[in-house]
């Protein structure tokens, strides 16, 4: 008989507590959202760019769900962004649905339906075919939108979109105040949903599929159906982002389907990092800042600098970048946690959970 080294017993209470703590909103997260909402009062006059950032953040969040958590590379999120954008524009223009929030949900549902239908194609084949199919679908939709210019307005864009006030009370004003608050609240709601998904057993199964799809199937995970589900949800989020853009700008044009839009989205996510939900949000802020700054320097050739940034990021290496950002985040998190605990003392947290719950 072999003697074993003494093993400390595992307590159910400890495990339960650890799992709960893992999913708890970290001080840094709470600070982030407080700051985000405070921006409504802190930066008047910047509403338009803030609103664009919020929409981009939601769009990037949708990609993070499939890229960062399920490992699906897609160049075609623009398909869902665009189809919901046009849908929202058309139902507003023809007065079919007059309440923006209801219209938003319907547009998101349309995009999700498209996501569901195309998911079966996307999940077949290699990375390359996946890229092809996702890109192909969005370009195809752009082509359709172009051909049916009598409905969509073609290259000139969808005109005459008249969006009713939200809940009958808040009209979209010129300064963009109501528009920004609207987008920010929608972003927050979608974020909370995404967060629940990610910390749920479903989210855990997605991470297992991304890490080792073979083993995931071998432990009973129905891999294909989980991926279909997250792809559908992601499409819905992208659609909501697209509908938000149409509703707040009262306009929709063909570039919602463009390759540039999908590529810029990848860039946003690469800048911010994938797989921890805040990557899209942080990346969107940095991207918009970069865009603003570079556009002031060289308004016409913005694309060149974006291309250069992409090339440099890849050459430097995403892992190295991720390592830097992780270090920066950890440092900021540590400082933030210490400051927070001085403001609001709590019993010391046990080891294991990183500031953002990873």
């Amino acid at each position, binding site marked *: 008989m072999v003697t074993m080294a003494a093993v400390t017993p595992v307590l*159910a209470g400890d495990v339960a507590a650890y799992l709960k703590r*893992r999913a708890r909103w970290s001080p840094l997260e709470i600070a982030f959202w407080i700051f985000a909402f405070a921006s409504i009062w802190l930066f008047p006059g910047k509403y338009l760019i803030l609103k664009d950032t919020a929409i981009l953040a939601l769009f990037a969040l949708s990609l993070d769900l499939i890229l960062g958590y399920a490992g699906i590379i897609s160049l075609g999120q623009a398909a869902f962004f665009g189809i919901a954008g046009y849908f929202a524009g058309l139902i507003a223009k023809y007065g079919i649905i007059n309440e923006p929030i209801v219209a938003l949900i319907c547009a998101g549902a349309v995009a999700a339906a498209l996501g569901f239908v195309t998911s079966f194609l996307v999940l077949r084949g290699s990375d390359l075919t996946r890229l092809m199919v996702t890109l192909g679908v969005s370009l195809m939709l752009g082509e359709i939108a172009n051909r049916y210019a009598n409905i969509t307005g073609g290259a000139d864009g969808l005109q005459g979109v008249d969006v009713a006030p939200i809940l009958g009370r808040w009209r979209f004003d010129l300064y963009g105040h109501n528009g920004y608050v609207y987008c920010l609240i929608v972003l927050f709601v979608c974020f909370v949903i995404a967060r629940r*998904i990610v910390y749920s*057993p479903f989210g*855990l199964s997605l991470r297992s599929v991304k890490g080792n799809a073979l083993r995931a199937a071998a432990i009973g995970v*129905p891999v294909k159906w989980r991926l279909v589900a997250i792809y559908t949800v992601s499409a819905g989020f992208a659609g909501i982002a697209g509908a938000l853009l149409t509703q707040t700008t009262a306009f929709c044009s063909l570039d919602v389907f463009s390759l540039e839009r999908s590529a810029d989205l990848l860039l946003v996510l690469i800048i911010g990092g994938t797989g921890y939900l805040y990557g899209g949000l942080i990346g969107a802020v940095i991207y918009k800042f970069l865009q603003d700054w570079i556009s002031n320097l060289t308004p016409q050739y913005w694309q060149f600098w974006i291309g250069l940034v992409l090339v440099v990021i890849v050459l430097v290496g995403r892992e190295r970048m991720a390592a830097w950002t992780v270090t920066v985040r950890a440092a900021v998190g540590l400082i933030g946690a210490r400051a927070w605990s001085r403001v609001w003392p709590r019993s010391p947290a046990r080891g294991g959970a990183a500031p953002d719950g990873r």
Partner: protein
Amino acid sequence: MDRRAVPILETIGLEKRFGGILAAQNVNLSVKKGARHALIGPNGAGKTTVINLLTGVLKPTAGRIVLEGRDITDTAPHERVRLGMARTFQINQLFLDLTPLESIGLVVSERLGSGADWWRLVGTKSAVIDEIVEIVERFRLGDVMHERTAILPYGKQRLLEIALAFACRPRVLLLDEPAAGVPEAERHELLATIEALPAEVTVLLIEHDMDLVFSFADRISVLVNGALFVDGAPDEVARDPRVKAVYLGEELDA
């Protein structure tokens, strides 16, 4: 009727052809309930192919697989897990970025039906927690359960490999060379854990380590060139001169 006599897992004429190569031919395996059944054979004999066929990773070109009286030849791999069959891999197939706790928690959640639950957080069901604790303790992973799997020592990873399969609460557990690559210092823990597996779990074991095979198995099947060669109790197989010849590479007489 003696329930032990009815096989829990059977293959009937199982065959797998890769182009011109016959990786498995006419394999008729019969595993009794509660058995400790070992599948041995020289390298390249097709043992892992048989496991891949049993679990559905490969589709057979002919033959059937029957689990607890139910034909599962066309059942998808993840469905077979739900029907009570789980496996380990010869080379660890783990979730390197998850911790053992998360990995085991995942398997248990899937099994207890919360796998598709997207709203509730992991770990809010006490039934899931209790099972996680039981498995972590059984496989002696308590002191490493919060570490990333990628940085665990190999012996612990191998234990986790088996723990994940065990967490599926299979009625048939297929172990593909569990002791492979495990350093001497960590073998005892691994072997003791395998021996302590509950009696009602049927175990089909592929192994090269003859000590483990002969101390653990109550029935041995020998696979050579994709075909079942000898099948019987350990002492019968040990005494069979043909088995010795196959392992020592001597030509078989007609």
